């Protein structure tokens, strides 16, 4: 495998107001161009990890390296230039008084020339279907619209790493699939690295790799196939079994034989078809 783009080494972190560690001895690597999903129960430390990556908080112990640069007070701006982050609550992220100003704000900060800027702003808002809201105040949007604008803000920046912290939690399932699809296309095309924190197991099952967090620690790391083989163990971790696997298990209980594990509905239906069409 190629050398990792992000290396998190023995990182621990504790909030001042808390008695226990929010993150305990985290070791993790993120590879260039991959889609990494981070899942885990509420309070398991996912957002804290994202804040550390973005230099909003600093580890109490351990180190974080992004593209060869070690994260510290002096390097924080070099690192932030490479990372675009969408926060869990979009309201905390808006700075502009209109949707287009808000998206432009980040570009201005990164010294993008004005003529390129307006084109990029509209382009990014088009990608998330929000180009008809250019002059609306971001706080005066519906929940899902806010999330779309927050995502556009990051897409416009064209960073090399995108961190999504439950960035699509308020979109309808189809809207969510569309936005994820759009980001996946950009990811492939521009070789962007995506770290997606999510409670949506369907989305996680499309990732290249999944990391499961539990009580501030990395519980397991693997491909979606490996992770979802954990079955009942997932429920203990606050997670659930994805729908296609749940249906497969129920079919097996009814005596229907299925050769392998299917992660998507398409695969499951196709599998049923091949095993039941030739008879």
């Amino acid at each position, binding site marked *: 495998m190629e050398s990792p783009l992000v290396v998190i080494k023995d990182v621990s972190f504790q909030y001042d107001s*808390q008695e226990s560690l929010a993150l305990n001895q985290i070791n993790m690597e993120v590879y260039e161009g991959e889609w990494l999903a981070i899942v885990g*129960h*509420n309070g398991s430390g996912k957002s804290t990890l994202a804040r550390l990556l973005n230099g909003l908080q600093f580890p109490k112990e351990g180190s974080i390296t992004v593209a060869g640069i070690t994260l510290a007070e002096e390097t924080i701006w070099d690192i932030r230039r490479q990372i675009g982050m969408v926060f869990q609550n979009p309201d905390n992220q808006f700075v502009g008084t209109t949707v287009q100003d808000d998206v432009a704000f980040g570009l201005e900060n990164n010294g993008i020339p004005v003529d390129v800027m307006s084109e990029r702003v509209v382009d990014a808002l088009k990608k998330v279907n929000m180009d008809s809201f250019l002059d609306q105040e971001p706080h005066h949007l519906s929940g899902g619209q806010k999330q779309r604008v927050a995502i556009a803000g990051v897409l416009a920046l064209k960073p090399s790493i995108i961190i999504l912290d439950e960035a699509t939690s308020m*979109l309808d399932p189809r809207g969510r699939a569309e936005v994820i699809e759009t980001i996946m296309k950009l990811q492939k095309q521009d070789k962007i690295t995506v770290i997606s924190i999510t409670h949506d197991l369907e989305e996680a099952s499309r990732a290249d790799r999944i990391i499961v967090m539990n009580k501030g620690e990395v519980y397991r790391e693997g491909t979606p196939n490996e992770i979802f083989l954990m079955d009942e163990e997932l429920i203990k971790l606050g997670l659930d079994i994805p729908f296609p696997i749940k249906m497969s298990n129920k079919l097996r209980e009814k005596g*229907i034989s299925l050769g392998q594990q299917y992660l998507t509905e398409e695969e499951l239906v196709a599998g049923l078809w091949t095993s*039941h069409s030739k008879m």
Partner: protein
Amino acid sequence: MDISLKNVEYRYSADTPFERLAIQDVNIDISSGSYTAIIGHTGSGKSTVLQHLNALLKPTKGTVFIGNREIKAGRKEKNLKGIREKVGIVFQFPEHQLFEETVEKDICFGPLNFGVSETEAKKRANEAIKQVGLSEEILEKSPFDLSGGQMRRVAIAGVLAMEPECIVLDEPTAGLDPRGRKEIMDLFYKLHQERDLATVLVTHSMEDAARYADEIVIMHKGTVLQKGTPNEIFSDPERLLAHGLDVPDVVRFQLRIEKTFQTKFDRICLKEDELINMLAAFLKRRGAQ
């Protein structure tokens, strides 16, 4: 207590250059003890409708009846406290309803405000925090020192502690982990059944709408597209899909099976086990032929 919206229209920032028509011609009846789910796209007007149910927003046209109160467009309303006490809303963003310095004070705020004694309020807070799956220790923490999902749970606990007659939930499970999502939805359903608590749920989960609601209302571009029981709403999945709406996983799975095997089962199944039974029997018949 019944709530109904009659020909309701709402414009944000009415009579300013920023005026925006959000909903119009909306008619919805919520009878006491019922469970209603409201579904629809981003921006279709769901949250706007919800805020009329406890008079946080007042219609710019039409009338909202809440119990024996009548909220009419263009009329000043006084003393809405009685309404707020009976109709509890869990907002789409939990941060919007947390403001006290500790979680306990936050949860007690509603009950105290409505005249409950301090001892009783604290007792309710203690009970509510456990109901939403958090430990008592969290009561002493600041609500802003919590993870997103923990804040969501605290916001829900605050509304439960008010012991309202009607509970209005705006995507209450967004941000919850998958197990928490199921536990909280089961909790709402239990309260709905045990206390006859009228429940209005805005959700993007077609599974939850199908599983829990007596009636589903589909919002589309600011108007009501369709109303009906889950069976009525999902009996014609192609129509929903054509409107860019979703159907429960189990329905989508059935459609995929039917298409691949070029068959039609005699009904649309909303329950997983029902479909599995039908599918297993079908596959075995095929095997036997």
